[in-house]
């Protein structure tokens, strides 16, 4: 039997949709399923439904480039993502499932004095808040990743980098499935192919959702959707400071493992890694113009391939297998939004931009705690929605940009 299949989860789908749940989570991606998982495992709350329009993990959870890192630019973010990174390290033990987690180390390359300044600053703030990042010189960079063209084709010379040894990756689908299995094993219902079409209201309060499978009453409704959160929020007259942008990526065929770290360059706007299956996974920055479409673009592929070859010349002769697009909810300050919305009984976890995958364990755990206790945990308090009204935005230069 195929090795991947042998270690696969066992998903036990519910036989029917109940008319009421204590908690309804909209969106069966990593964040929605992890929230359900931690509600069940940490708080004993199992009368929970996760409503998914497509199949689980069919949105951004199954489209991202699976990078796990905590090298952000503000203390609140470093703390949060470091916690998530550590939870990822324990996820296989926690769920008993192989999520193909591998610590690879991440190099973030500087090609200019300005870039050096930025990467040094990243190392400083990371170190201060418990995340491992150090500034490294070209010689060390070459030791870590001998395939790099240190001259950047003579156009983008490498000056230095920040090195984040705990940078890791995991198989995105397997993370989604591990949470889904764990949640369903404890009685959580996950309903695939069920779309939310509206909210049930009692005055201001949200008391449930209308779905393509009928009305479902709920004590609390949580939006964990990606890509269309503003559309969903507008159904209850809620405006979120979110714009949706495309993020594209492509993969090559599979090759024997020979590329160790994850490499990112802000100057060139690309990043590359070789996950366990052996393909080279290459991505870029978000498209500037907001869009909901999943269209793949040729100018992206052409330019991204070109720029990645400047960094890693061996890529030139690799075969492109497939390109695809995800849609990212970018908040006005490039940080996530978690918690209360001002609409009673409606919570959100959104603004996951290009960093949602790495936040799945901590995001799910913290949202579950908020739902179970009714109080915002300290770790995510800085990411509350009311920060925009209160002029307490989380401007994070460490998150803006690539992945």
């Amino acid at each position, binding site marked *: 039997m*195929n090795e991947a*299949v042998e270690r696969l989860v066992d998903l036990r789908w519910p036989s029917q949709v109940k008319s009421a749940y204590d908690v309804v989570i909209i969106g069966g991606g990593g964040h929605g399923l992890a929230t359900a998982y931690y509600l069940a495992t940490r708080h004993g709350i199992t009368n929970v439904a996760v409503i998914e329009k497509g199949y689980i993990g069919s949105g951004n959870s199954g489209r991202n480039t699976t990078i796990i890192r905590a090298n952000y630019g503000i203390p609140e973010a470093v703390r949060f993502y470091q916690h998530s990174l550590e939870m990822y390290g324990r996820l296989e033990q926690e769920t008993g499932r192989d999520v193909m987690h591998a610590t690879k180390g991440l190099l973030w390359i500087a090609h200019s*004095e300005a870039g050096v300044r930025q990467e040094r600053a990243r190392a400083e703030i990371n170190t201060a808040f418990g995340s491992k990042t150090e500034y490294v010189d070209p010689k060390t960079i070459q030791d870590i990743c001998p395939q790099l063209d240190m001259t950047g084709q003579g156009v983008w010379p490498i000056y230095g980098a920040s090195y984040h040894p705990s940078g890791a990756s995991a198989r995105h689908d397997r993370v989604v499935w591990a949470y889904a299995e764990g949640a369903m094993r404890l009685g959580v219902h996950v309903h695939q192919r069920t779309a939310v079409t509206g909210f049930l209201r009692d005055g201001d309060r949200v008391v449930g959702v209308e779905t393509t499978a009928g009305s479902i009453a709920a004590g609390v409704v949580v939006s964990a959707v990606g890509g269309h959160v503003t559309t969903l929020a507008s159904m209850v007259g809620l405006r979120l400071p979110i714009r949706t942008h495309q993020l594209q990526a492509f993969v*090559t065929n599979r*090759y024997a493992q020979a590329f160790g770290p994850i490499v990112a360059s802000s100057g060139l706007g690309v990043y590359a890694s070789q996950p366990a299956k052996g393909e080279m996974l290459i991505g870029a920055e978000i498209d500037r113009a907001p869009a909901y479409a999943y269209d793949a673009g*040729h100018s992206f*592929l052409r330019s991204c391939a070109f720029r990645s070859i400047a960094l890693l010349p061996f890529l030139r002769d690799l075969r492109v297998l497939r*390109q695809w697009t995800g849609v990212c909810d970018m908040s006005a300050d490039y940080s996530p939004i978690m918690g209360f919305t001002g609409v009673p009984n409606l919570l959100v976890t959104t603004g996951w931009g290009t960093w949602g995958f790495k936040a799945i364990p901590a995001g799910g755990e913290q949202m579950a705690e908020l739902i179970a206790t009714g109080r915002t945990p300290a770790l995510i308090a800085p990411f509350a929605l009311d920060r925009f009204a209160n002029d307490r935005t989380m401007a994070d230069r460490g998150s803006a940009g690539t992945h």
Partner: protein
Amino acid sequence: MVTDSVLTHLLRRGEYLTDGGALCLGGDCPHCLATVDGVAYVRTCQTPFRQRLSVQAHPAGDLPRLESRGERAPVPARTIHCDVVVIGQGPAGRRAAEEARTDGKHVVTLDSGDGQDAIGIYPGPLVVARTNDSMWQLYPRDEIIVATGAAEIQPVAPGNDLRGLVTARATTVLAAAGVTLGRVVAVGTPPEGVVATSVSGELVRFEPAAADPRRVGAVVLRDSLGTEHSHPCDTVSLGLGLTPRDALLRMARGMNVRGVGDVLLPPDVPPCPLDGTVCPCSGVTVEDLRSVHARGFCELDLVKRATLAGTGPCQGAACVPHIRAFLAAQGADLPTPFTARPVTRQLTLGEVAAGAHHVATPRTALDAEHRALGAHMERLGGWWRPWHYGDVEAEYTAVRTGVSICDVSTLGKMQVSGPDAVALLEHLYPVPISSLATGRSRYVLMLDERGYVADDGLVCRDGDTRFTLTFTSGGSTFAELWVRDWAESLKLDVRVMNQTMSLGAINVTGPRAKELLVRAGVTDPPGFLRHGTATVAGVPCRLFRLSFTGEVSFELHHAAADSVTLWQGLMRLGADLGVRPHGLEALMKLRLEMGHIIVGQDTDFDSTPRRLNHEWAVRLEKPSFVGRAAILRTNKLPLDRQLCMFEMDGNAPAEGATIWLGAEYVGDVTSSTWSPTLGRSVMLGWVRLQPGGNDEPDELPTKVSIDGQHARRVTRRSFDPEGIRARA
């Protein structure tokens, strides 16, 4: 005869590159993939044979190596605008192309037989194709015709990885190419023009030959009574049905695309596979399908993600028909195939990158001068700029004690004229504009609607209805959009000319700056924050008197064509004054001693004037300007952090260093330098206010530590606190 492919050439010699599997010769199956000229995963059935071509099998039982060998010339790109693109030149494609030509259309055809493969259809519409010598981008005005035909269905049964299995159409091609096939047994539709024994029944397995365990020796079928029959053979021809190659059609939904010929066929659904390998690329068996299905993976996409079937180089061509049949047999509706995405035919990154360029970084008119002087050039604020000329200390000293020049051509520069120019600028800037006298300049912050500082610069009044604006180097592109957008949305009658590239600018700075200008022919240099015109070293200039370095400074704006003349003139005339150019590194030091901020370096995108300690640059008594409402609102909230100036003994900490109050983090350093004049380090940094306690207001800490060293916050800079030097 058509050129031999690498595959037929080798097969004719009895050589195999791969383990086996049913060869299709149509570019659909993964059974002929090999490394050709250093590129792995090349379809040898589609690669024309030529002498001295290096062809190697992929490593047995392993993946190809991650490497690239030797130099390769860049692949050229071609862009063709036409009326119609016809993809595929089988009978249907040829007919469609002919019809379109008869209608007088400009038609471009893509023939995979000639190595022309469409790799994707993108919004545009744009058809991208790989050819043997270049990449094509085809923009059809009228329509795209997809005539890619249909692929033959692969067999799924034990032994389907043996050699000697060939699809029916491929059997015909191999026979015609003179490849020895031996005894041919035909399962399903027989091959055309080949002598073969047709057999019928349900395919059970392929058995290896006694003489060569890697090659087929017999095919076993089961009749309707359940009896198995073994048919000895050397080659099995497999006519198991067709499945349309419709990925391009599906990808182009919503565009002006139509299919012709076999691509429109409804896909044949093979019988539910019972045993054997379904996906040869990822090694997925029927047993795997049963296993994942039992674990709740019941949708085509989930099966794909769980098994990785369909994620290999054949992109599901081999496995998808069988997985659909399998799922249908489990009671599901016959699922639609996966979403079609580019690329549909494989190519290298080097090929797909054809025609791409790096983003070009512009150079000022003085670029060659800087390089000739040995400058270390850096990309800064979107331009190539001199970082230093080899001796930062000497550059610094020249500014503080003598005279120095600096290329500031990259500054954003703009003229605004028109009856509503004053109204526009009153709206854009948080300070009074109408009271600004002609010939005077004012430092301004540019705020966004949220009251955050987006840029800074000068407003200079040139006349009643005419102004010159400056912006930071990195901010000028955004600034133009900002000015134009507001003018348009307020329906104001103004003219806007962005002159960033049109005008060079050289800053002449230092205690002896005026002396140098007088030598260069300026009789009456303008006073502080004034501007005027003069001919300097023979070059007509506008002179702006302001100061970023803290010394007497004149910014000389001039036609870009005159930059070199002016630069060389100043260098010559100031030679005995010790004039030398200074780069950005020295400038960073000079401005930091003065406590001047750099928007973008010292600011975040949520920096209000209050947080920057720049409330002096905002006049809230003005009834309206962009950002005013937001500032009034946020001013009611307690201040949470502020950009402050720090000094400390000892070496300058790294920019980005954290600032601590005891064991508590209170902020970080945004700019940091050693001040030769003060003999200590000066810094700018963000600091969070600390709770005051006992109803006291929150306050900024005074004594902090940075890099483990004591540092103190200063409310007033130590270097020339009165700003006397700049006004001298």
